[in-house]
């Protein structure tokens, strides 16, 4: 009962998003943008982490870039390879503690497989600024450019996501 008036207010706000005046690329993007803002505004009172969780799920990339699952073994190689992902330059992974000198600029990746779903992990690799606008982390995949303008290829991103899912 306690959350109920808030939930009603949230639903009202979301439905009001149909006629939003937010300028964006398409009407669908308008509505999505508006929902994101409205939901965030209400949820920050209902649930401490709620706004963050909602914005994360709204901006996830649920579809596989290749239409198939990746290979976690190859993903581990991409994560550790300095010429590829080079993730350990900035992040720590306890499961790979045999590799020395892991970085501390970014948060530890331990447990990211439990904390985030595939879509969120994929979004974080492809465009971390969607979740963390001020992050120093580069974007590791660029769909528009040719493959040389992208740090990782689509299959490599999928392999990496598969490996990160194992980091529970």
């Amino acid at each position, binding site marked *: 009962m306690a959350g109920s008036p808030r939930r009603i207010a949230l639903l009202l706000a979301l439905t009001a998003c149909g006629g939003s005046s937010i300028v964006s690329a398409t009407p669908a993007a308008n509505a999505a943008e508006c929902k994101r803002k409205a939901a965030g505004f209400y949820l920050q009172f209902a649930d401490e982490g709620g706004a963050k969780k909602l914005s994360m799920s709204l901006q996830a990339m649920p579809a596989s870039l290749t239409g198939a699952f990746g290979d976690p073994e190859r993903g581990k190689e991409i994560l550790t390879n*300095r010429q590829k992902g*080079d993730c350990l*330059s*900035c992040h720590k992974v306890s499961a790979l503690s045999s590799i*020395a*000198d*892991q*970085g*501390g*600029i970014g948060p530890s990746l331990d447990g990211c497989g439990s904390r985030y779903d595939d879509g969120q992990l994929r979004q974080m690799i492809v465009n971390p600024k969607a979740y963390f606008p001020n992050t*120093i982390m*580069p*974007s590791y995949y660029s769909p528009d450019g040719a493959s040389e*303008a*992208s*740090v990782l290829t689509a299959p490599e991103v999928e392999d990496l996501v598969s490996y990160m899912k194992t980091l529970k």
Partner: protein
Amino acid sequence: MQATYIAALVLAVASLFAGNSVYADTEIRRSIAPAESTNPLKELIQGAEFIPAQIRAQQADDFDNPAFSYVESGEILWGTPEGPAGKSCQTCHGGDQSPISIKRAAANYPKYFGESRQVISLSSRINICRKKNIGAAPWGEDSTEMVSLLAYLGSLGRGAPSAVDVEGLNAPVFEHGQKLFETKLGLLQLSCAQCHNNNYGQKFGGDIVSQGHPLSYPSFKVSENRVITLHERFQMCNRLVRAEPQQLNAPDYVALELYLSWRSKSLPITAPGVRP
């Protein structure tokens, strides 16, 4: 009695491993306030404060410093006659007890040079001198001779800060250098400022990010097992963010060197350095 012997033995063995704890995140690093209030850094910390204690000790000891042999070669080259008239640097500039300007040469460059009508680096000035005053062929930017002379002149400037001028004719190049420092570069789209202004002290790629001061160059880079110049370090940084490196002594690199020299005031020159 036996207990104390055992304790002493344990301590002795433990101290063998003490040197390995080099990446303490809570290390206190000595800093000074920047000379200019417009400096983006609020505290200036020398490069040596970010490197492992072992390597810091190597840099501090001229006999142990692998780059110091370059200083000695540089001193020899300084006095070696060349060209049709058999002149050496020493002929005009005297020995290292010579006029102050040579002691401070490393600190004054890059600077605007009237005859070339542009801001030039110390290596360019050396080559101009070689051609005009000695009549000798220029040295390559990363040749052993050039690196030796840069190491020698750098060592003469030790202990005093950079004295670059960023006003007047130097101003446009200084501003360009500042812009470059803040420009996102390469496939990874990272700017110098993001790491060296905002994330120094963090563990990255097996090292600790420094503030990126130019004061220890030329420097012996342990991972490359050779002495490198500042511009070679820029090339490495470019490759790190997966950008195309430029030529040594490229205008962008000279501009960046000018900006970094200003930004380092008033930390002292520590060339030649040792870096991991």
